[in-house]
């Protein structure tokens, strides 16, 4: 009856990697190192010669900085947010390169599909926006503006304050980390599922008549690879813009 045995690898095998270097260096750690070094190299090479008309690598770097400035900072924080341009550019480039390794042949794993990297970035953002809020408004001013939003009837604060506390101080870093992590893991699982289907139909299929069906999951895998490039870019953008929104909200309370 069963013409092909579908052997889906257990989840531990999909996200766990052998150590192959000193200090427990494994594939996600290697990807993170590559992301750091390649971003540094691009921006270092671009910043060395300050040509008026940019060429080559300088074009890439200037387009990225322009995108962060016009697409993210100006839309959410305004001109005062320019102090965060280096942080947001670093964040965007690091997450984008980590994500894009999902579709690079032979590596094919997004480093952000392990919880550690998104969690660290989200906690760093959390510390940063709380620090900026306390610095700009003072501790009590920041607590007042974030826990007691203006324009709410006095009696409603019994309900509103706990919800605001939960959503601002606990759920923000959690959802920021989980959003990036789950998107990347889901994309990786999707690609793996169709790759396993293709492999099963083509190589572990006892009925020759059914072999040509492998075209369908293979075509789906190709289409999904394109989709995952979009997701990688979009998730880097969303993480960065949410960081900018949180920073802007901490610096300028609602009136």
């Amino acid at each position, binding site marked *: 009856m069963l013409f092909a045995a579908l052997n889906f690898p257990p*989840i531990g095998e999909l996200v766990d990697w052998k150590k192959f270097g000193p200090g427990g260096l494994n594939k996600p750690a290697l990807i993170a190192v590559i992301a750091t070094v390649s971003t540094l190299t691009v921006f270092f090479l671009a910043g060395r010669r300050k040509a008026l008309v940019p060429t080559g690598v300088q074009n890439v770097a200037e387009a990225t900085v322009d995108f962060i400035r016009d697409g993210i900072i100006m*839309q959410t924080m305004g001109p005062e947010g320019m102090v965060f341009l280096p942080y947001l550019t670093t964040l965007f480039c690091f997450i984008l390169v980590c994500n894009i390794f999902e579709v690079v042949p032979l590596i094919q794993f997004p480093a952000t599909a392990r919880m550690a990297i998104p969690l660290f970035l989200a906690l760093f953002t959390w510390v940063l926006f709380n620090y900026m809020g306390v610095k700009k408004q003072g501790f009590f001013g920041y607590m007042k503006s974030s826990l007691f939003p203006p324009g709410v009837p006095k009696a409603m604060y019994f309900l509103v304050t706990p919800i605001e506390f939960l959503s601002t101080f606990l759920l923000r870093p959690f*959802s920021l980390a989980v*959003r990036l992590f*789950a*998107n990347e893991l889901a994309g990786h699982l999707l690609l793996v599922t169709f790759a396993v289907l293709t492999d099963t139909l083509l190589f572990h299929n006892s009925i020759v008549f059914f072999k040509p069906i492998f075209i369908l999951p293979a075509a789906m895998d190709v289409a999904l690879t394109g989709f995952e490039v979009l997701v990688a870019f979009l998730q880097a953008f*969303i993480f960065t813009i*949410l960081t900018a*929104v949180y920073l802007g909200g901490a610096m300028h309370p609602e009136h």
Partner: protein
Amino acid sequence: MSLLLAATNVTINSKEVLKGLGAVGAGIGYGAAAIGPGVGIGIVVGNAITAMARQPEAAGMVRTTMFLGIAFTEALALIGFVVFILLKFT
């Protein structure tokens, strides 16, 4: 009839039952978690398209806000996905 008799002879391991129930719960749970965000993202994107069609000059701002709205709405579905992974594979 013989099938029924055969079924009564099977001894059921409680560990396997638990595993099966976990898989059923994971599937139903993720399906339920995807309903609300699905409707929500539809509303967000639909209204963003209406806004862009009415005021094409504000398209950039609307698009940024749309992605923000999608990100907040999508978080619930993704938490559902994480719960699915936890229930199914641990």
